[in-house]
């Protein structure tokens, strides 16, 4: 690991100033991704700014009937929080589908948003990578790309965002609270992560020195009509090949509104508002779910090894919508898909 200096600020303002004043300084919280990236020399910050002792560890009521989740609430504390389990079970389920007990204990809410792709080439400093070294090329295109994107990729990068939690946050339309050198701002979740385009080095729309301080959720919805369905190469402790967070508002046997987000398929949690609109006013049926899935995947493009993901995603979307409509969400400890 490349040596670095260590700073432990006592306030958000100090932390933001410490990172903002140095282009090579980074925030660290749980460290479950950053320390690993530093061990591979993928990340080589000259200063780490330890924010773990800042007072951002509470889950508080919001005026809109939602909640504001502090950036330093651990993934485990968030998933098992009584109110989150009751009012946002989709979020709990997605978090518990990811990582391991140990990692969820260490990883933070803010850090989960900021974790980086697990693309093999990004991690291997002996290979080119446009995300790690802009302009060096993308060997995943035409290379080993079983885990890579089928939606929204560019000629410069086909990496995926690895988070499960963020897929649920996309479906729940969370808002990210940020503090930076120029003050505070709020970023709708759909605008937080970005597609690679010709700047794959930028995973998200944060500016250097901006710190995630909280993630806010709007008032609860969907009732029992939600699910997080994750498909992967082993039954636990693996990143998604394809995952689906689905939530349906239902009334009188019809879908009044829908939210669908996909993980494992793109550089960001993938939403398609037109596909969601297709479901509005419809009674749940295999035909309408297939139509929604087809719409979401209309521009899907395989890279070779990952061609299977297109059909897998189609089936996963349909199955997730069936689970959500029936009010029988996937149970993460139960490996059968109902």
């Amino acid at each position, binding site marked *: *690991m*490349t*040596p*670095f*200096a*260590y*700073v*432990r*600020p*006592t306030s958000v303002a*100090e932390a933001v100033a410490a990172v903002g004043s140095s282009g090579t300084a980074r925030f*660290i919280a749980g*460290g*479950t991704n950053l*320390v*690993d990236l*530093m*061990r591979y020399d993928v990340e080589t910050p000259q200063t*780490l700014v*330890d924010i*773990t*002792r800042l007072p951002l560890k509470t889950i508080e009521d919001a005026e809109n009937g939602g909640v504001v989740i502090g950036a330093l609430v651990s993934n*485990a504390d968030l998933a*098992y929080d009584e109110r989150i389990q009751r009012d946002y079970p989709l979020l709990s389920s997605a978090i518990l589908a990811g*990582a*391991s*007990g*140990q*990692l969820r*204990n*260490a990883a933070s809410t803010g850090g989960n948003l900021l974790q980086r792709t697990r693309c093999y080439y990004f991690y291997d400093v002996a290979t080119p990578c446009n995300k790690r070294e802009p302009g060096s090329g993308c060997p995943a295109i035409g290379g080993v790309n079983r885990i890579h994107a089928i939606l929204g990729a560019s000629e410069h990068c086909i990496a995926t965002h690895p988070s499960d939690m963020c897929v649920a946050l996309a479906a729940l339309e969370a808002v990210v609270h940020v503090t930076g050198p120029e003050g505070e701002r709020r970023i709708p979740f759909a605008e937080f992560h970005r597609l690679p385009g010709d700047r794959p080095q930028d995973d998200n729309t944060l500016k250097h020195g901006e710190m995630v301080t909280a993630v806010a959720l709007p008032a609860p919805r969907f009732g029992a009509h939600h699910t997080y369905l994750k498909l992967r190469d082993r*039954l*636990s*402790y693996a990143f998604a090949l394809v995952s689906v967070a689905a939530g349906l508002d239902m009334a009188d046997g019809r879908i009044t509104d829908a939210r669908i987000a996909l993980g494992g398929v793109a550089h960001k949690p993938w939403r398609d508002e037109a596909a969601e609109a297709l479901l509005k006013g419809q009674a749940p049926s295999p035909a309408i779910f297939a139509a929604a899935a087809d719409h979401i995947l209309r521009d899907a493009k395989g890279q070779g090894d990952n061609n299977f993901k297109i059909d897998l995603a189609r089936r996963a979307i349909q199955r997730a919508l069936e689970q959500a409509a029936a009010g029988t969400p996937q149970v*993460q*400890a*139960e*490996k059968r898909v109902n």
Partner: protein
Amino acid sequence: MPEMTFASAAPDEIPISLTINGQLHRLDVTPWTSLLDLLRETLHLTGTKKGCDHGQCGACTVLVDGTRINSCLALAVMKDGAEITTIEGLGTPDNLHPLQAAFVEHDAFQCGYCTPGQICSAVGMMSEGHASTRAEIRELMSGNLCRCGAYTNIVDAIEDVMQDGRPAVREAAE
């Protein structure tokens, strides 16, 4: 404890204190020293194992303030003031922790390399209190890999201790 700021321009050692298995240690560490390397290389507590050093295998699992984490991904300097429990702090050869005794009883290991991490993880999982079925134990222990494939017996051992000594029903095959 009081908050501290280190405005070090150059990388250097930083004084920290850790209570490890009940004993207070005052140590000077470089910021890039992992908790795992501190335990093994500086304190010679080699019960905690380095498997992958990337948070993928769980062999390095220890308890920090009672919570199980991967010590390979934890920077020691960030745990200043914490209480650490390693496998050495759970039992002694003459007085085994119930999980250690259950692992012996159920033949829950072959080579033994993952065992300290498995046991520390199981202690953490039991105190978290979210597992009550075999399926839940397996899911919540999935961060601990066992290349010998002793999983069935590991779950038996944990289930035995969770059921407070009552004999567990073994799975015929998994």
